């Protein structure tokens, strides 16, 4: 009977303890899925995988990458939007999500989610030409475009970030290029190597070896000031084109996920961003871990959204304009 009493007391204590523990949510207790709206091999997937490696250590649970490419990333964002808000599904994306809404592909933006903060900054959005081309800098390219309107080619992915960039560029420099869709980063590389297009818009990290081996030439980077990791590249602003487009990567959770859980995940991001090893790995690809807390990130992203939406009309009318010019 004595042992029975002991067990009974222990049980009661355990029950009481479990009730009080529930007040503070234990997270995470199982693997977390991070959905990447792109296929493997690109910069989004790579950045996410590097982050995941270190997040696992901070969170103590596996962080599993799930690639859901296609439909401009809208398949992935929609999937996460409709997932259970239990903190075990998140999406890792960048400005292209804004563009999905801009183009009317989806009717929501990041504010339909809980923002866990910005993790990675990519200030290496560049225009690249084949080294054998006559364009040494942005102005060469602009002059060529003015000399032959609608003939000089630029490769992008319709509805993607670089598409917005080229529309802004045309607007600011009053030029008309032949904007062609070639698809993903890999396809852009192939198109430029094969000299099928004159220039592409891409992130530096993916093509750094091509610059180093002399096959590609970078004619400008779209950041406010020169990027210390690629100091030889002139900015667009320096060359008279006033545009700056940082590519920021953030994590979103479904609407309704508890603030406590989002906060814990966000803290983990902050710790990873402060981790020199993580920073070094990301720096290899010319991006950097830069943490912005949920509130700061949301403010920043709203500002960016406003900038993007300035170009909405341009985006929607782009093709129609081109047709009329042809006629």
């Amino acid at each position, binding site marked *: 009977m004595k042992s029975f009493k002991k067990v009974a007391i222990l049980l009661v204590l355990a029950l009481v303890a479990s009730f009080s523990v529930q007040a503070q949510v234990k997270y995470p207790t199982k693997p977390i899925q991070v959905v990447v709206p792109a296929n*493997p091999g690109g910069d989004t997937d790579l950045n996410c995988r590097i982050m995941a490696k270190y997040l696992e250590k901070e969170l103590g649970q596996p962080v599993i990458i799930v690639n859901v490419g296609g439909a401009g990333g*809208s398949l992935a964002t929609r999937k996460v939007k409709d997932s259970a808000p239990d903190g075990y599904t998140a999406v890792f994306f960048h400005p292209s999500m804004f563009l999905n809404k801009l183009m009317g592909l989806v009717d929501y933006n990041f504010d339909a989610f809980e923002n866990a903060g910005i993790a990675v900054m990519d200030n290496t959005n560049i225009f690249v030409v084949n080294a054998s081309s006559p364009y040494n800098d942005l102005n060469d390219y602009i002059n060529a475009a003015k000399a032959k309107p609608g003939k000089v080619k630029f490769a992008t992915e*319709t509805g993607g970030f670089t598409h917005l960039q080229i529309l802004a560029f045309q607007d600011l420099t009053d030029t008309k290029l032949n904007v062609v869709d070639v698809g993903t980063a890999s396809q852009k590389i192939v198109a430029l190597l094969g000299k099928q297009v004159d220039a592409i818009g891409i992130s530096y990290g993916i093509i750094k070896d091509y610059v180093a081996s002399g096959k590609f030439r970078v004619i400008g980077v779209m950041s406010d000031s020169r990027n210390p990791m690629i100091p030889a590249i002139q900015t667009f602003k320096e060359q008279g084109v006033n545009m700056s487009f940082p590519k920021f990567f953030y994590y979103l959770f479904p609407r309704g996920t508890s603030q406590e859980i989002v906060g814990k995940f966000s803290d983990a991001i902050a710790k990873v961003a402060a981790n020199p090893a993580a920073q070094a790995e990301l720096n290899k690809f010319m991006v950097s871990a830069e943490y912005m807390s949920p509130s700061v990130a949301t403010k920043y992203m709203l500002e960016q959204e406003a900038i993007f939406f300035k170009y909405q009309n341009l985006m929607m009318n782009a093709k129609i304009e081109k047709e009329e010019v042809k006629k």
Partner: protein
Amino acid sequence: MLDLFAAGFASVLTLGSLFMIVLGVFVGIIFGSIPGLTTTMAVALCLPLTFGMPPAIAMSLLMGLYIGGTSGGLISAILINIPGTPASVATCWDGHPMASRGEAGKALGAGVVFSFLGTLLSIVALVFIAPPLAELALLFGPVEYFALALFALTMIGTLAGKQLTKGIIVGLLGLILAFVGMAPIDAYPRFTFGIHDLDGGFDILPALIGLFAVSEILNVAESEFSLKKENVLTNFKMKGFGFSLKEFWGQMYNMIRSALIGIGIGILPGIGAGTSNIVAYSVAKSQDKHPEKYGTGCLDGIVASETSNNASIGGAMVPLLTLGVPGDTVTAMILGGLMIHGLTPGPLLFIANGEVVYGIFASLIIANIVMLVMEFFGIRVFAKLLSVPKHLLLPVIFSLCVVGAYGLNNRVFDVWVVMLFGVIGYVLTKLKFPTSPMILGIILGPMAETGFRRGMQMNEGSFLMFFTRPIAVFFFLATAFMIVLTAVGNAKNRKKEGTKA
């Protein structure tokens, strides 16, 4: 180069590395042989496991998975008429009939040997002429892709054989199904009826699972169980690899042609083993003096399919290693893996990390040999495993197909796609339509349309591009030739039989 090779082999001939190769091939064969699970999935699942490993060992595992997986599909294709992976679709068409005659050993043996040879030839190409091959791949712009797709679409005519009209219809249906989803270029959803899950279109894997696995299950459900048929399948005698030396030499031309097709399709980014096996099979059939034997269980069909799908391995590695551009879905995963290990494939990889590259070559060579040995000894094991009665085996396979379909994009929707295509496949078979052309339609439709529209964009709407680009012109002529050939062949058939297809 020889010293680099020596260094490469040295890095791979360590215990850890060899173990990984063997493990990779083994796991690859298992994933490859189970319908629903694919090589891409095997690589994707094992990628996180490689994070702690040094790059050379990680690559050994991945190469083993790649080779084992691509070849493993032939096992289920031959023994249960369901392709283990999209790379072995065409193997079913002659592999299974051969097995039903009691000659499963011959089919399996041939499949294994020619998988080995196909891989070997493509490795040779990769090691010795990768840079020129990469240059060739760069010559393929949108117009060339359009022309190539058009040419491959004419293979529908060859596959359909006597049932030309029905075959064309099924091919067109495949094209139509491929339209569903985001349109190329402008990315607006087409034919999705507002169902957002359809925005991404129908993935080829669930479609394949549905067309083959589900319809097979429905067929088995429909027909009566025949103990005799089952025994014929699994009790086969086998000596050596199951086929004679004379037969082997007879397949040489077929093998080389199929390997070239496999390598060629492999080096083009975006298409790989899934396409090459069907194209090689069709080309073999169209060039054969007796095309009617295809589909009845002829060796040529198996050789064509299995040589080319494995040849696409080396082919797909060419753009990956030289340009940093993946040649197919598996290499896309491998690209991610390489980058995570701090290696950027591309022009500098050979210079900066030459030992890794040659380590990869060495892994491929060794993994190929391991695959041959493992599968040779495994043939009898496979047969025993598959002598498990169909009523137990097929449901288990279906549940694995569900895993594969769901695991693709983490949505139940893909399982529904499997069901849809299962119904389509079943109905088509019941109405006596051939199902094989549908796959060509689904794979090649987007390639043709995207190529055409992008080509138009690049050339500002001028049709001149079709006549001025040599590679495209070559394929257009080939297309026209195939159309004429098929039409003439069909007319001849009709004359012979006096009835309409």
